[in-house]
């Protein structure tokens, strides 16, 4: 009873090279069959799928980034437009202001000029009038003096006299007429 047991047990731990050979052969055949028919296609499919998924995620990310960029662009464009519009308004206002000021200045200048010319005219007229009045006064004085003295006075001699007299008269009008005269 003991010996067969030992023999059987020793056959458990003995290695039959033939079986190793068959194991290797079987394994290699199974490996190549399954690699060609199952693992290869499955792994390829899985890789393909992973590639697609990662590509999809990538493209989604990219698209989102693009959309965000677009949005940001648009935002900046809008704000830029708004800023430009404000700038434009401001510039317009400024220009208008400037134009108004210019206009005002021009009109003021014109008014000033008008006033000046009017004054000049007035002065001229005044001087002319004063001169006339003087001439008239001289004539009158001479006539009066002639009548008073009832004698025919030498016209030019007496005229010079009268003029001298009139010149000595205090000016009744504006003082500056007298000043101008004396100058």
């Amino acid at each position, binding site marked *: *009873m003991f010996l*067969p*047991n030992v*023999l*059987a*047990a*020793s*056959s*458990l*731990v*003995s*290695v*039959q*090279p*033939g*079986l*190793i*050979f*068959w*194991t*290797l052969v*079987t*394994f*290699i*055949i*199974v*490996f190549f*069959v*399954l*690699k060609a*028919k*199952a*693992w*290869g*296609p*499955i*792994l390829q*499919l*899985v890789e*393909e*799928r992973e590639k*697609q998924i990662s590509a999809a995620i990538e493209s989604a990310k990219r698209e989102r980034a693009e959309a965000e960029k677009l949005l940001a662009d648009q935002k900046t464009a809008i704000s830029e437009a708004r800023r430009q519009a404000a700038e434009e308004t401001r510039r317009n206002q400024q220009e208008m202001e400037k134009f108004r000021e210019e206009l005002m200045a021009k009109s003021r200048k014109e008014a000033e000029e008008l006033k000046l010319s009017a004054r000049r005219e007035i002065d001229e007229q005044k001087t002319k009038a004063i001169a006339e009045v003087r001439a008239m006064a001289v004539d009158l004085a001479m006539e009066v003096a002639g009548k008073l003295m009832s004698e025919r006075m030498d016209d030019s001699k007496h005229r010079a006299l009268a003029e001298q007299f009139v010149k000595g008269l205090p000016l009744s009008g504006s003082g500056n007429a007298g000043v101008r005269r004396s100058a």
Partner: protein
Amino acid sequence: MRKAMVLFACLFVATAWASESGGHGEGNEPSVPDYILHHVADTNDFELEVPLSHPIHLGAIPPIRIGSCAPVMTDHGLQAPTGWPGLMAGCLDLSITKHTVMMWLAALLLIGTILIWSNRDKTKMVPRGTGANLIEMLVLFIRDEMAIKNIGKEDGPRYVPYLLTAFFFILFMNLLGLVPWMATATGNLAVTAGLALCTFFVTQAAGIRSAGLGGYLKHLTGGVHWTLWIIMVPVEILGLISKPFALTMRLFANMLAGHIVLFFLIGLIFILGHPAVAAVSVPFAFAIYLLELFVAFVQAYVFTLLSALFIGMAVATGHHHDDHGHADDHGHGHSELGPSHDHGKAHA
């Protein structure tokens, strides 16, 4: 599978009852250890085991032997390998044994199952159906959790088909052994040694691929002066072999131990000789059977995981050698290896 378990349990209960009616100790009945050892041993006799009785002989496949195979006469008949000269004497025994047939059956079942389940609409990116989903889940698991986590993102995917094949092949052999009247091929040292040899070859190929042939050989010499190579090279080779050896023993011992425990629990009924023992040992055996189902998966997983780990370490050794000034050897090795230039470039 559940049906098989129920059948299995019924079988043992029936056996227990039979033991009472039939009695025991008649002398020509096989003893329990004999029975167990006979069950797990590999022979080229095929028989249908009948509990408590002599098995029904199904016939034998004539042995196939290559080389100089004059029979060595022993007292115990012509039981291989004791009765025949071994490989050292120039005789390769290629006999188709019970475990060979089981292995082939597992291989056929595996190929059939995987091909049926992976045959799906290839234009659709998403699998449809339980089988296709299951396979894809396992494929992804082995790729992401084993290959990439142990070998690396760069080199990992290359070894996925190997790891997948090893996992499923071992799993199918383990599970087939749990079907009544079948045998566990992975409970045979030669089968596990063959599987570990596959991992060994793949590991060495990975090492050569990553370090280049020069770097690989340099690593094999252990970095000592050439006069000491006569000692150092065997040491390094032994070191390389120790890993697949561990794989071999682990798978073999686990698969065998479970079966022996299972049978021994049932055998307890006959050893103690009372049917009441069945009330305890049959539930225990059933629990062990469930455990064995779990172990079948775990051992396939562990074998694959360790294979991935070893491949990863071989790849890392190659990388590590690159960094220590063997760049010239590296480049040279790659030019010999041909289609693996991409790898070298990743380093440069």
